[in-house]
């Protein structure tokens, strides 16, 4: 009964995995237990620290973060309504955009003015909201590209294959392992452009891991991914923590945030407005206000009464036009 035995092995694997998950998750949870639930709270072992980051686009201040720390070995979610400045903040941290003011450091090494490629080499690797697979390269070539410190990437070494062939073999072996883990091994030789949206997200994440990062920054890893694949992606993100990596991710899907994150940072209008473990943050009044508006549970008439204005004026309607309520 091969099927049965396979099932048992699976079950055993899962138990082990769950056991590990719990342990790593517990470590992260314990480390964060005593951290103050307030914006800019100090963490026991921060891997990334940002101070006074300001980015203006003309008259608009897109990001204005006083202080924020990211705990090592934990999964931290960065959430906030559309236009809160999450992606801009990501770009600033990784060197893809330059802030007007502020300092930030990774492993206590300052990152001011460090170009993006060097940030990546230091161990801080990001993915993009709009997936950037190199569509006219094959999946395996995409993966190989991620490996750092390749001898053959120097012009004159590249000309002489024996100088880089053995390293290429090691890289390919590592790439194949990752592809197998991400269930992309069957697509190995296909052009990355032929992958589905979800597979592209997987490939981008796997490729980022080829850099062997310490901190993985995922910009909306679930955007446009079908529900079936979401579960597997979630598993992969948790897996990163199990392997000792730190994860910072931007996400809109609250279920996912609740499920996998150890700590949540909430941004609104460019600033950090709340921090805390997922469940506590989601019941925080400031967060609910930011997402739904301060008056989300009042009718417009009540708001108007509170603010002392006429309801029709607020609605922008005239007396002659019936309100939607009347119409129904």
């Amino acid at each position: 009964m091969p099927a049965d035995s396979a099932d048992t092995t699976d079950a055993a694997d899962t138990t082990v995995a769950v056991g590990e998950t719990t342990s790593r998750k517990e470590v992260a949870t314990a480390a964060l237990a005593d951290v103050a639930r307030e914006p800019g709270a100090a963490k026991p072992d921060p891997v990334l620290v940002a101070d006074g980051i300001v980015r203006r686009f003309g008259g608009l201040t897109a990001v204005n973060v006083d202080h924020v720390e990211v705990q090592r070995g934990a999964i931290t979610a960065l959430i906030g309504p559309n236009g809160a400045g999450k992606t801009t903040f990501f770009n600033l941290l990784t060197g893809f955009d330059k802030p007007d003011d502020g300092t930030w450091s990774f492993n206590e090494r300052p990152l001011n003015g460090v170009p993006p490629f060097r940030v990546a080499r230091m161990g801080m690797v990001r993915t993009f909201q709009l997936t950037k697979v190199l569509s006219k390269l094959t999946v395996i070539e995409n993966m190989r590209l991620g490996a750092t410190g390749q001898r053959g990437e120097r012009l004159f070494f590249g000309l002489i294959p024996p100088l880089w062939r053995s390293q290429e073999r090691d890289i390919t072996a590592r790439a194949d392992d990752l592809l197998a883990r991400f269930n992309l091994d069957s697509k190995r030789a296909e052009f990355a452009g032929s992958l589905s949206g979800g597979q592209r997200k997987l490939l981008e994440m796997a490729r980022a891991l080829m850099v062997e990062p310490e901190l993985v920054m995922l910009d909306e890893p679930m955007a446009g991914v079908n529900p079936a694949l979401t579960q597997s992606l979630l598993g992969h993100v948790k897996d990163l923590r199990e392997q000792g990596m730190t994860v910072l991710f931007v996400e809109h899907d609250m279920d996912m945030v609740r499920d996998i994150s150890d700590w949540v940072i909430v941004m609104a209008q460019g600033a950090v407005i709340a921090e805390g473990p997922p469940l506590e943050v989601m019941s925080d009044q400031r967060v609910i206000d930011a997402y739904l508006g301060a008056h989300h549970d009042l009718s417009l008439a009540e708001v108007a009464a509170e603010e002392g204005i006429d309801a029709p004026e607020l609605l922008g309607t005239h007396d002659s036009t019936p309100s939607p309520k009347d119409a129904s």
Partner: protein
Amino acid sequence: MDWGFIFTASVSYALGALTVAYCLAAIGLNLQFGYTGLLNFGQAAFLASAGYGMAVMVTTFELSFWVGITVGLLATLALALLLGLPTLRLRADYLAIVTIAAAEVVRLVVRSVKFKETLGGSDGLQQFANRFYELSPLSDGFGINFGPFLFSNQELWVMIVGWSLVALFSLITFLLARSPWGRILKGIREDEDAVRSLGKNVYWYKMQALMLGAMMAGFGGFIIGIFFNAVSPDIYATALTFAIYTILILGGAARVAGPILGAILFGFLFQFVNVTLSEAVNADYITFLDSSQTAQIRLVLVGAGLMLLMIYRPQGILGDRREIALDAR
């Protein structure tokens, strides 16, 4: 109409010195545009800087031919560096604008009256390649016949050296395209931010591709100069750059053999149209043209051909549609 003559004239041209020069320039452009995606529309300027670097040293300053070659290469690399430093930070389309303008600047400077003493003005410079022909192992004489094809000793010597360079540069391209270095170039062509996020210094790789491609094109500039034993500014007009693009796209961008096939086919068709038209005019088959107009007609046809290629077969003869940077539709 002597079809035998038309055919041999076209084939001779398609294997001759000028085709070799265009081919070398296209190999360089293949590295820049085909693999890296750099829209360099100033390739003519790199040929000019090499050709003029050589000619000025030998004719104006009366230094040796080898000093000329060295200075020509250095001038080409310097121009690539000068152009690349500010422009490689720009998006692809802006790079195209800047390079096409820079190429015109180079051409107008070398033909200016102000520098006539050094650069020869619109007449250009002559008689600097004699040393090259002295090196020829071919015996003196009027030429050598290969079946119906006749090449002068001088052109044959240029062809031998030129096609050897084509072989060498194609080998280099072949090795580089398969190396991790070439993989980064292809990655940059697809999405440079993605490559950046993986820890690669994109700017420096683009600079390397631009300089290496410029150097290969520089050898094309030497070949043109040596073959005519003269350089003149108007050879290096933008039409030259577009001919090189046509060659590359015809053969297939991002393919090692693309520029070779493209150059031979382009040379053949270019000359075939020219000779056929002038034969037809001479034989009074065509009465609405005179023989001085046929050379212009073929340029019109080059433009039309480039348009048709871009619309119907942007991957060229050897290319793989899924793989090329061109998406006209």
